[in-house]
């Protein structure tokens, strides 16, 4: 329970002239749900996107410092971001199923990475991913239907299934429940707890209740700084930094 999966050291991120992340160092553990909380624009999503190098797609974005996954620097020149992203899955704020069938949505990653030799194996991978995404029972009879035709909550669970179909080691979730109603949110949160068995899960959330419910570790970001990082119960009951306390009690944010 204490092996470190992701280790970030003195990470700086710049968007053009804007210094968005300042000196962030954090160690994220395996088989743990780590929550990033903080007011809007504090850099938590930006930092999340550094972990699978999605910021590479933004021209003006520049990342400095080291981020190591399993001891390997992911910003090293020898690392191919494409392979890195196969290892570090991501679920976005807004459900973004491809305009394809439910089956093809989930099969997309495994097909690209050549994870199956034949149709039967692929079927198997898709079924397993949909089961682990807790959506199999709802869609098993209409795998050919377009993924965009599902409800918002189903779409998000489909996207989670899609992300875990490639069997990543880390799952990044950028406010996965912000577009969902309370029932769908509860389903996704239950799912996150199950996913912890196999992955290091990092979740960005605006809901402090959600952070308290699903995470074991919590990191509080403010104005680009990592203010406090520790066990979730401690952060929420006995924070060390006054800024953390102000945020949690609703005085800043």
């Amino acid at each position, binding site marked *: 329970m204490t092996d470190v999966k992701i280790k970030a050291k003195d990470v700086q991120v710049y968007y053009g002239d804007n210094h968005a992340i300042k000196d962030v160092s954090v160690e994220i553990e395996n088989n743990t749900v780590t929550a990033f909380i903080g007011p809007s624009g504090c850099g938590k999503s930006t930092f999340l996107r550094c972990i699978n190098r999605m910021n590479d797609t933004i021209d003006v974005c520049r990342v400095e410092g080291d981020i190591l996954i399993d001891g390997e620097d992911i910003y090293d020149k020898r690392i191919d971001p494409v392979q890195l992203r196969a290892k570090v899955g991501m679920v976005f704020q807004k459900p973004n199923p491809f305009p394809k069938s439910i089956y093809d949505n989930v099969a*997309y*990653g495994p097909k690209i990475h050549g994870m199956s030799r034949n149709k039967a194996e692929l079927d198997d991978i898709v079924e397993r991913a949909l089961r682990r995404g807790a959506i199999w029972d709802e869609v098993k009879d209409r795998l050919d239907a377009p993924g965009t035709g599902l409800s918002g909550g189903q779409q998000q669970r489909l*996207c989670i299934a899609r992300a875990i179909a490639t069997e990543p080691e880390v799952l990044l979730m950028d406010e996965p429940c912000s577009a969902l109603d309370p029932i769908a949110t509860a389903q996704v949160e239950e799912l996150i707890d199950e996913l912890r068995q196999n992955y290091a899960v990092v979740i960005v959330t605006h809901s402090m209740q959600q952070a308290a419910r699903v995470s074991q570790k919590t990191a509080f970001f403010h104005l680009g700084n990592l203010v406090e990082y520790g066990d979730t119960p401690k952060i929420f009951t006995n924070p060390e930094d006054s800024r953390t306390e102000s945020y949690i009690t609703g005085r800043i944010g």
Partner: protein
Amino acid sequence: MIFALFVFVPVAAIVAFYVSQQHANALSSATGQRLHSRPQHHGMHSMLWVMLAGWGVLLVLTVLGETLIHRTLIGRVSDALPDDGPLQWNLVLSDARSIAQGTVASSTDMLREQIASSFSWMNATRLWGTALATIGAVAAVAWWTYQQITIELRARIYAENMIRRGLAVMATVAVLTTIGIVLSLIFETVRFFDAIDWQLHKFLFGTTWSPLSGVFEGEMDADKVGIVPLFAGTLMITLIAMLVAVPIGLFAAIYLSDFANQRVRAVVKPVMELLAGIPTVVYGFFAVITVAPLLRDAGKAIGVPIASESALAAGMVMGIMIIPFISSLSDDVINSVPQSLRDGSLSLGATKAETIRQVVLPAALPGIVSAIVLGVSKAIGETMIVVMAAGQGPNLTGNPLEAMTTVTVQIVALITGDIEAKTAAGPAFTLGFTLFVMTLLMNMLAQRLVARFREAYD
């Protein structure tokens, strides 16, 4: 005079606007009550009525007066010259008009002088009558609307209704014009088919196109009106054009939307769109003067004979012309594919190429299909380039290196040729109608395709 009246009406209307507005204002402050409509609505109400009445009276009187004068004078000329036909009567009348207006007439005699003096005073009466009636109508209507202004008058509602009706009239004009053009196409086409005794199979499947050789006025030889060589030419040149335009346009669009950085994009996109602004005539002589000789020499070098007028040259240049339409439209649809889909694909470890091929392009497909259809429509309808670069001879061949002709080129040849328009009109209109039906069917097919993709994806 008529023109002065035409300008007078809007000026009077603007005056009416301000006068009514002032009156409404004064009324409201005098009584201390709130008007139902704002003062400018009262002004608008007066202005619209004045314009309607002024221009309406002007139009009706101009047309009526002109017709009346013509009828009366032609009647008098025909009484004086009962042995001559309408052609002669019209000639006399136009001479008389020339005399009356002090310009040169073809000949002068007693009758012409008499008619001329009648024309003079009739025309003067007509002009002064029209002027008086128009000014009278404007004044009366302006007074009438001015009188109507009260606190309760629902001027805004009346004015808005008038504007709405005006808009509806404009829409009707557009629709009626289209219907008129289509009807005239159909009418001439039916006449043409009558002339070939409705031997439609000869028209649709005949391989000789030479409608004007060895025929007398109004006649057609059914064996010489086969459109196969023309449509073969059109299809061949369209195909070549699309083979050039679709890959270049589409790949350029993909590059611009997904690979180029902002600076490259800011330069390349306007330059590409500049291509769309070049007149087709310029493309035409570019094809003749630059591309065709280049192809011919290249052909000579490798031992392939290429005619100096060839479908290949015309098609290639037409393709270049169409590139910006395809690239610009495709670029727009590819850009409108949400970034979240790209992020989703990239976050699964897909490469950029995989993302574009498997996620972006399928999502953009309906738009890309309609861009291609627009390109095909332009290629089929394009005339100038083919007139210059592809030749005029209806030459049925499958070889793109030879001269070919297209439907549009033949229409140009028929209309601008030295055969009298009446004979040439039949085949020309029929070709036009066939082209119209073809393009229409294609657009409908494309819309079907697009609708089907849309259904599958959202």
